[in-house]
């Protein structure tokens, strides 16, 4: 029994064990060995991804139904590990150049990754909270990793304070749910609530309030409006590699968690939370589109961009159907690829050893670094949703799912918001290609980053041909949530 449980949780256990070993290695060899710690961490992530892929324990629950392993968790974890792995490999040179090459950095990344995997696998509100906090605590620290700079520490502190507030809300919501339903397990919650509804009894008020609080806590993690306020400040203040990490892996994990919690334990309350989701999605899309218009810092711009993208993804969830969840999953994958590529480009924005972050610094990039400009151009067009690039298909799936669910107005506003959003994405292209050239960037960015850029660009351009496998994987994953 224990063996079976351990097998189901093998990737997490492996990761946890590796972290301990790497931590020891770091402690004993000091900061001079940071590079090897990074490389080993990367290897650990790759190995964990293989374990996730193979699913040695098969599907099912583990450890007193605290955790579960199925196609959905596999799909989400693979995405998270891709995001984490890419950031890890790109961080290798970055942290050296930014004078933050301490061995704790990759370790903290790994801890955060472990937390994400645990929360994706959570099958109980308690384990959910545990995973979430493990992730968050690690992220608070990396946000403030450059503790000698004001901006980084400010970002870390803000994130911590607001994160703590949201955790409080989440916990409060969980306690309300427990108080009115009497259980925290996902399966039992589902059964009890379904039973309540089946008997036609009025819903306990506390349950619904608890649901709102839980949703608010999760919305904070995915940075959906109106719980997004931390995002621009933290994205701008944190070291760029950390921002890249924030924008990819944790966001995927939180979105997956959001999907899971809403569609599994609270599946019977779909009609209740749908309204919340519609509002949150709508507000995120609109704010993400409009607020980005007047940004001059590219990291801040990407923050609003990610708020907008979360809005689109939540449109799929708001549909409350299996196709909706499928669409969210496809969207997550596409979002991940585009964001990794874009942040890889942003990581290359250095002049004379210093990071530059203004959008206007990209001027004339098409002349000094045509390949990078082309790649960034591809990412921007994709984010703007220009067919046939990948970003278009992401939006296509969520909007199609929402239309099926009858959310016509939501879709119309979403399309309009994406028109507004297209402006600032395409403005970047205009600046790169048509503006007076600024000084060229440093070119010693390292092969890993270039590799990541190239791979993502190829994926964004070419993958629409292979959308079917992605769609099938998402379908398989979604069926796990809907008890297919």
């Amino acid at each position, binding site marked *: 029994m224990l063996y079976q449980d351990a097998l189901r949780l093998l990737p997490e256990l492996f990761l946890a064990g590796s972290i301990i070993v790497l931590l020891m290695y770091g402690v004993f060899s000091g900061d001079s060995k940071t590079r090897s710690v990074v490389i080993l961490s990367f290897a650990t992530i790759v190995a964990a991804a293989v374990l996730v892929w193979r699913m040695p324990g098969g599907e099912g629950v583990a450890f007193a139904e605290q955790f579960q392993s199925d196609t959905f968790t596999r799909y989400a974890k693979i995405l998270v590990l891709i995001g984490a792995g890419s950031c890890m490999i790109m961080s290798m040179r970055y942290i050296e150049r930014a004078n933050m090459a301490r061995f704790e950095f990759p370790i903290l990344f790994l801890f955060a990754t472990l937390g994400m995997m645990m929360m994706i696998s959570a099958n109980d509100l308690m384990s959910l909270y545990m995973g979430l906090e493990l992730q968050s605590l690690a992220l608070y620290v990396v946000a403030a990793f450059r503790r000698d700079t004001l901006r980084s520490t400010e970002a870390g502190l*803000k994130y911590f304070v607001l994160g703590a507030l*949201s955790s409080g809300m989440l916990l409060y919501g969980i306690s309300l749910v427990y108080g009115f339903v009497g259980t925290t397990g996902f399966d039992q919650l589902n059964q009890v609530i379904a039973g309540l509804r089946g008997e036609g009894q009025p819903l306990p*008020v506390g349950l619904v*309030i608890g649901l709102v609080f839980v949703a608010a806590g999760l919305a904070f993690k995915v940075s959906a409006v*109106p719980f997004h*306020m931390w995002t621009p*400040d933290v994205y701008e203040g944190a070291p760029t590699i950390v921002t890249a990490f924030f924008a990819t892996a944790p966001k995927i994990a939180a979105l997956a968690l959001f999907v899971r919690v809403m569609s599994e334990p609270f599946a019977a309350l779909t009609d209740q939370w749908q*309204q919340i989701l519609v509002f949150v999605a709508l507000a995120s899309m609109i704010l993400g589109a*409009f607020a980005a218009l007047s940004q001059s810092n590219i990291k801040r711009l990407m923050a609003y961009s990610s708020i907008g993208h979360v809005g689109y993804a939540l449109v799929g969830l708001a549909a409350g159907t299996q196709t909706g969840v499928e669409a969210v999953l496809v969207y997550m994958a596409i979002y991940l690829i585009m964001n990794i590529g874009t942040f890889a480009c942003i990581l290359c924005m250095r002049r004379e050893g210093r990071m530059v972050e203004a959008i206007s610094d990209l001027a004339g990039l098409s002349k000094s670094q045509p390949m990078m400009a082309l790649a960034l151009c591809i990412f921007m067009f994709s984010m703007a949703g220009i067919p046939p690039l990948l970003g278009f298909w992401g939006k296509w799936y969520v909007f199609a799912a929402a239309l099926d669910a009858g959310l016509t107005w939501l879709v119309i506003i979403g399309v309009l918001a994406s028109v507004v959003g297209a402006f600032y994405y395409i403005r970047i292209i205009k600046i790169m290609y048509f503006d007076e050239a600024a000084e060229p960037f440093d070119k010693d960015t390292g092969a890993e980053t270039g590799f990541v850029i190239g791979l993502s660009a190829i994926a964004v351009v070419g993958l629409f041909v292979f959308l079917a496998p992605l769609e099938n994987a998402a379908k398989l994953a979604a069926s796990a949530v809907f008890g297919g």
Partner: protein
Amino acid sequence: METAIVFLPLFGAIIAGLFGRKIGDRGSQFVTAGSLVVSAVLSWIVFLSFAGAHDQPNQSTTIHLLSWIASGDFQLDWALRIDTLTAVMLVVVTTVSAVVHIYSVGYMEDDPSKPRFMAYLSLFTFAMLMLVTADNLVQMFFGWEGVGLCSYLLIGFWYHKPEANAAAMKAFIVNRVGDFGFALGIFGCFFLFGTVSFDGIFAAAPNFSDATLLFLGTEWHAPTIICILLFIGAMGKSAQIGLHTWLPDAMEGPTPVSALIHAATMVTAGVFMVARLSPLFELSDTALTLVTYVGGMTAIFAATIGLTQFDIKRVIAYSTCSQLGYMFFALGVGAYGAGIFHLMTHAFFKALLFLGAGCVIHAMHHEQDMRKMGGIWKKIPMTYALMWIGSLALAGIPPFAGYFSKDIVLEAAYAAHSGAGNFAFAMGIAAAFLTAFYSWRLLLMTFHGETRADMHTFDHAHEAPKVMMLPLIVLALGAIGSGYIAYEWFVGHDRFMFWGASIVQSADDIIEHAHHVPLWVKYLPLAVGLAGIAMAYVCYLLIPSIPGVIVKTFKEFHAFLFNKWYFDELYDLIFVRPAKWLGHVFWKRGDGDIIDRFGPDGVSSLAAKIGRRASALQSGYVYHYAFAMMIGVVALITWYFLGHSV
């Protein structure tokens, strides 16, 4: 062989156009002119096989190239229709084109973009050949638009000259009016007959002689409507009165272009089209009457303007316009053979005149104003002689070509014995007088009298090189002999054998009657022609003060003619200015003040404003953020309770 005739020029155009830089100026001249010469020789072989027929009437053959459109009932092929009419046009087009190609080698010697010029010329020739060999209306329209395009490109060949650009655009736009009619005519044909192929239309036409079309709530005689629409197309391309304004301006193009396109070939496309569709036009007396009137009007109207112009090329251009009028009224009275006959002879002598004028311009260092010429006949005797030949042919003096064709045209008009025919005859006689007059006015002003050119230009006036003179001699042979030689084939005893079924004719038709008109009718054109020449001698050589006196005495009338009957001004007033005004209103008021203001501009400034507001929310204070989160939760819960009464 026929396929080679049509596609050799295209081959030349592609080679010179795309690889002109690789093969150089000489190379592209060689390729284009060479392929045209081959094409011309082949055309002559085809023509002679038709001309030699004595036993039975010539038949038409169709060479199927490709299937083009097959959509439901609508079947369309690329096919070459070869009959006598086509063969005549092939000879005219390829011969003049080949001559002009060779001539251009000399004329464009100093031009930097020779390959482009040669490519355009060849492309034009291809389009024109496509037009004359068309097997159906749509293919004809393809050629029709192709020649229009090349005409546009060649008029605007010197694109650095603003006048050339304006003239090119004018030609294109005015032709568009005609093309609109043509296109509607094609639609009408398909609507009525269910086919656009000539064979199909001609076969079906007799059954529809009384068909009607419902248009604007009224029943109209269908063939009349269709023929008038098609004729509007012909009017545009052939510069008939009303749609003629582009032709004089088109003289901004290089002179070889004027000779090829705006004298010999493209402008006669309308004549060709009416002749080609003669079985259709025969169904509508109204349409034919209209053709006759328009032709007669154009003949006299253009001739009167020609009297007053000073630009040597413009005089010839108006003369072309006038001669096209002759062709049209010949068609209008049913003398299709006569119309094509005049087309053919005119092509030779008018191209000769244009190229001769080109030699003069070449000699005078690109001076085109006749007031700055004079007395140069001794300097360029060869050109002078050739211009004489061309003018004699144009004025209709025997035995030059124009005499035969113009006479039969006028005789046919007289023989029609209809109101329109008499009108056309009267106008034609008057125009013949004026034609002779202005032709000799041109000759005398250019070559005789005291020179009015500056001394430098005069001293350096010289004969053009051989490469320019030889082509002129070829054309001169045509201008001298073509009328006499071809008379029997086109309008004489052999005409039934010669034309076969390619145009409508019968044993009792108008041409037959034309041969039996009173003697005075036969001699009148010649008489007025000689009178016109004599008159010109009096006015411009013997007593040079007369023109001045006449201009002073009839000041208003002269101004009316000199300003080309104020057509341009009238069109400016009726069409151009209101259109510009309307455009301005739509642009400034409609687009700028309404659509832009509330549309793109308004939305984008609103978006920017919202954007600033939204990012201003980001105060940077943690307690603001926390407050926003709390408000969010409270609002969501409140909204929930408002929405669901639990």
